[in-house]
């Protein structure tokens, strides 16, 4: 009988100890604050979703751009942005240090995005709107592309800093 009491007492102390952080809801004091300094007023997806699943979204973007050639993302308000970490994400959240590194350093996550992708010197917001038809230039090329992507006038591309002359 005495043995049983000892065993259960030991077990319950062990369980209490193990589950302590859960029922005490211990929160770290130095939890990083994500910088919300942004240029635009809307994100490609709701903030709560992005906080949890940005890595999934980036992977989906990567595959659809590279492998299927689908390069544009429809924003919640219906406008279109390029599926691009450097141009769209960092075009709005201008500080990579605050926006990416704060959390990744804290969580000890080491994504290898930046071993190839290049951090833009100045964030360029690349919202593409006002799609027009320019029939004089690159007619053949544009006609062929109509099936795949919508076309943009040279003016638009220039004003958005997408076209380097």
């Amino acid at each position, binding site marked *: 009988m005495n043995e049983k009491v000892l065993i259960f007492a030991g077990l319950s102390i062990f369980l209490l100890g193990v589950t302590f952080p859960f029922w005490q809801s211990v929160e770290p004091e130095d939890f990083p604050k994500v910088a919300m300094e942004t240029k635009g007023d809307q994100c490609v997806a709701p903030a709560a979703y992005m906080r949890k699943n940005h890595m999934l979204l980036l992977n989906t973007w*990567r595959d659809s751009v*590279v*492998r299927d*050639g689908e*390069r544009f993302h429809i924003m919640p308000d219906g406008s279109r942005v390029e599926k691009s970490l*450097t*141009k769209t994400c960092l075009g709005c959240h201008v500080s990579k240090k605050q926006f990416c590194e704060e959390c990744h350093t804290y969580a000890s996550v080491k994504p290898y995005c930046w*071993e*190839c*992708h*290049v*951090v*833009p*010197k100045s964030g360029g917001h690349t919202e593409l709107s006002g799609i027009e038809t320019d029939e004089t230039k*690159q007619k*053949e*090329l*544009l006609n*062929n*592309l109509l*099936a*795949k*992507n919508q*076309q*943009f006038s040279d003016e638009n*591309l220039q004003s958005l800093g*997408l*076209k*380097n002359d």
Partner: protein
Amino acid sequence: MINNRRNFLKKSTGVIAGAGVVSSFISKYTTGLADASTEKVVSKKKIRWGMVIDMKKCVDGCVKCIDACHVKHNVPDFGNPKDEIKWIWKSDYAKVFPSKNQQYLAQETRDKPFLSLCNHCADPPCVKVCPTGATFQMDDGIVEMDFHRCIGCRFCMAACPYGSRSFNWRDPRPAIENITSEYPTRESGVVEKCNFCSERLAKGQQPACVETCPEKVLTFGNLYDKNSEIRKVLQENPTIQRKPELGTNPSVFYIT
């Protein structure tokens, strides 16, 4: 039913006859398809990008197209042939067309450095050998690289008959003069090559080399579109292709 020799023969005859009927239907259908198009069908979207290089117009010593391409795509320059990375480059006629050992070829043609780049073959051997699917063919015929998936095995380099692929033996970043954030760099252990500027095509722009060339040496367009400029050029000029005997069906044509 008793499983004897007689029953077995009855059943197997029936099965063989049925299979024969079905296969004849299938072959009739598929040969009909093959007859319908003389061209090799790559794309469901009716696009196959191609390029004509008019070497008569190409100026000796001019490297504007090469510079434009290499700047736009963060191609490093290590300054030695062992580590060399190239997307578009100039090479001797004899190296570009080794199987065209024509007698009494014009000296001018023989001496000219020929522009070479990935041929974006309709039947690309590099795609067949890639074990990870990092090199693949897009619907528009472009042989594309997914740098994320490249494991650096270099099977594709062995398979490519045109030497169009380069391997990053070292970290390329220190060897890039002005890094642009418009296009990623590569890391060491990754193969790279010309992508026909698919990122520019998506925006309705011509490839960088085509846009830059002051002599209009390069004509780019859709080979499937009979009214396209490139098809007109191909109609009007006799052209040659690199190693056509290999059956890779290159999308790059040369006017010599």
